[in-house]
């Protein structure tokens, strides 16, 4: 009863939702890189889609509505479909279970683990605690909606926007050059 009260009164819904989405994101993330049941790239790709979708849930919690939409539309909708297409096209078999070199496994785990430890350690560094406690979740003055982002994008960030258009052109040319069936 108390729990439900808390949930209704003190922004508890957001907390619960955060926990749910975060757990989903991480779980699916783990399944992307290490799925105990299948080593097929397709499974990885599908879990990556799930990661992205649950992450867009987190985006919504952070009031980044436009990006949440873009995340689903562009990432899950376009990029991941591209991945799946390629996987189908190449007709990739399951990654054979080659015997993992123990040295690499341990070395990789240790170095990534230490990077993570340093990350977390810097998170709990004194400055940060102060910063985080003083600024409790501020009431959103700025909503991450299309209008606000669009304004910023076409005033402050026009130049990068244009450069990205060149980049897309280059990517297009590049893809055509690399995958054209026949180059005489």
């Amino acid at each position, binding site marked *: 009863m108390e729990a439900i009260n808390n949930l209704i009164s003190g922004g508890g819904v957001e907390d619960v939702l955060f926990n749910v989405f975060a757990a989903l994101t991480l779980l699916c993330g783990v399944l992307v890189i290490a799925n105990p049941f299948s080593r097929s790239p397709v499974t990885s790709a599908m879990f990556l889609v799930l990661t992205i979708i649950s992450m867009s849930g987190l985006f919504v919690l952070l009031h980044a509505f436009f990006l949440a939409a873009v995340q689903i539309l562009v990432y899950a909708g376009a990029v991941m479909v591209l991945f799946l297409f390629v996987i189908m096209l190449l007709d990739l078999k399951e990654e054979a279970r080659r015997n993992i070199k123990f040295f690499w496994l341990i070395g990789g785990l240790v170095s990534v683990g230490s990077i993570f430890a*340093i*990350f977390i*350690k*810097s*998170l709990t*560094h004194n*400055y*940060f605690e102060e*910063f985080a406690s003083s600024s409790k979740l501020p009431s959103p003055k700025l909503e991450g909606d299309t209008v606000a982002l669009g304004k910023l994008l076409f*005033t*402050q*960030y*026009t*130049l*990068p926007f244009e*450069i*990205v258009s*060149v*980049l897309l*052109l*280059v*990517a297009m*040319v*590049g893809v055509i*050059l*690399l995958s054209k069936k026949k*180059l*005489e």
Partner: protein
Amino acid sequence: MNMSLIGLEISVIGLGLVLMLADLFMPAERRKFVGYAGIAALGAMLLFSFADVGTCSIAGTAFNGSFINDGISLFFKRFFILAAILVLFIAAEFSDRFAVGSVAEYYSLVVFALAGMLFAASANDFVMLFVSIELITITFYVLVSFQRSKLASLEAGVKYLILGALSSSFMIFGIALIWGTTGELNFTKLAAVAPQFETSKIFLLGVLLVLVGLGFKIAAFPFQIWAPDVYQGAPTPTTAFLAIGSKAAGFVLLLRFLFTAVPSVTMHWGKLLIILSGITILYGNLCALPQRNIKRLLGYSSIAHAGYLLLGVAALNAAGQTAILYYLAGYLFTVLAAFLVIALVLRHLDTDDISGLAGLGQRSPLLAATMTISMVSLAGIPPLAGFFGKFLLLKSVVEAAQATGNQGYYCLVFTALAGVVMSLYYYFGVVRMIYWSKEPSDMSPIALSPAAKLTAWICIMGIFWLGLFPNSVLVLAGEAAKALGK
């Protein structure tokens, strides 16, 4: 806001589009001329950047301070355009190795990469930094794997792609952390607030991760591992552009980031930079010693040269920054001379083994002389450009040692000189192969096109000019370095 500040960039992008379209209207056998037209246009732009009438050489900022035109950006823009011109010359000579239908695309991709470099030279906030570096990198993914009929080219492309994307991820995470703690994306504004975050670990973490991304671009230890493979596998003109353009873009961003955005942090990192520079020099030179593949050898040597250039960063003074600019200018001619010769001599051979250069002294005296001068300059022997650049770098380090009393600087000088002595062995191995090899298999003279001869002469003149009359470029470099502040 003065839009004409980006005149140079707009014209370069325009040129890229024109070159791409020109392909449609040109008969296949005349596509070499697309390259020459591009060279002519870039040459005009280069002249334009020196003329006072142009507005692209006016100092100022645009787009709310995210784009900056100052001494250093102008210096690097000229540098990049010159590099692109010479690379296009090399590409024109090499073009018969590409699939016929794709030659013009190659030129236009080079020009688009150039546009990315120009933006990088002017980037003054993290968004510009990220976007311009990605434009360069993604273009290079395509350029590296351009000879897709060759497995090596594709393999190099994939290696560059995965490691490049990895370093981008680190960099973007670093940018996120920096922005998150300070709330600033603009370098100039960041410099004002950075000192109060110096103790924040998460901020320092962000700065380090950005350094990882930039360290990858310049191939500095411990992010140097990709260089030899990619240099070896990529088509020779791409390798040339990678060695000079991409590396210089990394350096201009590194200088801006370290000395404009977070100078207060950088000043504490002398020791770190000393160690990185020293190890980079040793790694590059040691690995190059037993190397027989000439492109791979130059890959290792480019790691060593990144180490030398880092000397100037580690010195943390204006003299060091000036020396970097000067050294890069010399390196431009030297490296492009070497790759020109490699492109011309080895293009019809399957291997890049050093023995392909055997008998070059008789086959083509001009190319032999070009390669020799290039190697001698890389080895840092006076009176060529390479010597002078190294001298300036060492001098700046000695100055730093005097100013700070840090003994580590003297160790660094020693390391650098030891590296120079080691490098003699393999550079002179190349010279020896050119003139003094026993029974080369192929002794047919190499016919050179006028354009190739011109390029060779430009490179030779550049190397000698920078070595004999350093003052002219030194003044430019000194002016440019002033723009960085400290």
